[in-house]
């Protein structure tokens, strides 16, 4: 049975409100604009098929990001290595060449392992809480809390210049 027009209108509003942030989230997890756009399409296609059940207006954003994450995982989960809890995040980040430039911070973000980058992106771009990210990813809230904290700490230290020499700088000392 077709959805009533009020539901269609709600869906259209959601597409207009969230497609940009979903694209950005998906771009930063897969680093491929075309793939990110396809995943946005898939996300809304799946959202549409379950739209009738989604009555909580406040939860729509988190719900859409959860679907987007699942769609990305469906494509890439097999290629994804297990998160290494011992990894030294700070040493993975190449030293900034200009901390004032968004381009450098974007590169630092891209250098974070996906298991640390993903929850931080869901938090910053998606506005999800640690509990919501935990529910979306199947990890415990404590694990997400730790990963987000470590990712933030590494980026903060990187911005402050308080970090061990990065791999790139070790290869190419200036």
């Amino acid at each position: 049975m077709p959805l009533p027009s009020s539901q269609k209108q709600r869906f259209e509003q959601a597409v207009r409100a969230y497609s940009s942030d979903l694209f950005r989230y998906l771009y930063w997890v897969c680093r491929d604009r075309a793939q990110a756009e396809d995943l946005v399409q898939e996300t809304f296609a799946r959202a549409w098929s379950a739209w009738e059940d989604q009555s909580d207006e406040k939860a729509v954003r988190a719900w859409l990001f959860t679907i987007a994450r699942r769609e990305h995982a469906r494509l890439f989960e097999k290629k994804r290595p297990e998160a290494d809890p011992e990894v030294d995040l700070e040493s993975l980040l190449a030293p900034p060449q200009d901390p004032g430039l968004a381009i450098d911070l974007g590169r630092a973000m891209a250098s974070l392992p996906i298991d640390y980058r993903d929850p931080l992106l869901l938090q910053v771009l998606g506005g999800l809480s640690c509990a919501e990210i935990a529910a979306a990813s199947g990890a415990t809230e404590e694990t997400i809390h730790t990963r987000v904290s470590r990712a933030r700490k590494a980026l903060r230290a990187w911005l402050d210049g308080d970090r061990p020499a990065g791999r790139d700088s070790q290869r190419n000392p200036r």
Partner: protein
Amino acid sequence: MNCIDFRRTAGAGPRGLASEAVVHAAQCAACRALLYRQRELDVRLEEALRVPVPEGLAERVLVARSSGRPRLRPTWAVAAGIVLAAALAWAVPPLFAGHGLAGEALAHVHEEPQSFRIRMNPPTALLATDLAAQGLRLAADVGEVTYATLCPMATGTARHLVISTPEGPVTLLLLPRDAERRARSQREQEGFTAIALAAPRGSVAIVAATARQALAVERLLVPA
């Protein structure tokens, strides 16, 4: 809540802090400072992550929904697109070459982020001299040149200049020996806008953090 609890809570992000954490921050200067730093990091992160969104994305999603299936880019369509683009690039070189220069300029700026950090003291007349060599001048002063070097690009050696304008740095790539007659093109990628255009002699690319900045400099470039 004590400082240790607060730091543990705030470490995972400044959003959605519990009311007791907010109360603690109001009473503790050190934790308040930590919270400000977290918020500042979030602002900078949001800025860095704000990549341009494909034009018409929401409309394409809505069209796909109304047609009952997602409008994906099938593999064959991508392949056909590449073949078509290659054929058109061969058939209509100026149009696509111009777009190519904007893309090349963006890539070049991404490869040389140090150009925004290094402060050189090039001769004050350098910008005017280089522009005059291409039959151009600036209709008004845009700012101080902070970086000037020669860089190899696909279309020949470019003069790479960074100008410190009141709205932020703007990069000029001057290609006096570019023999192509380029159509004007504009491209946006990862937070930068590039405009490539033909000069009376050679071509010029302008790269800035916003389209408004790049357009402002473009409008000031006039024939000498």
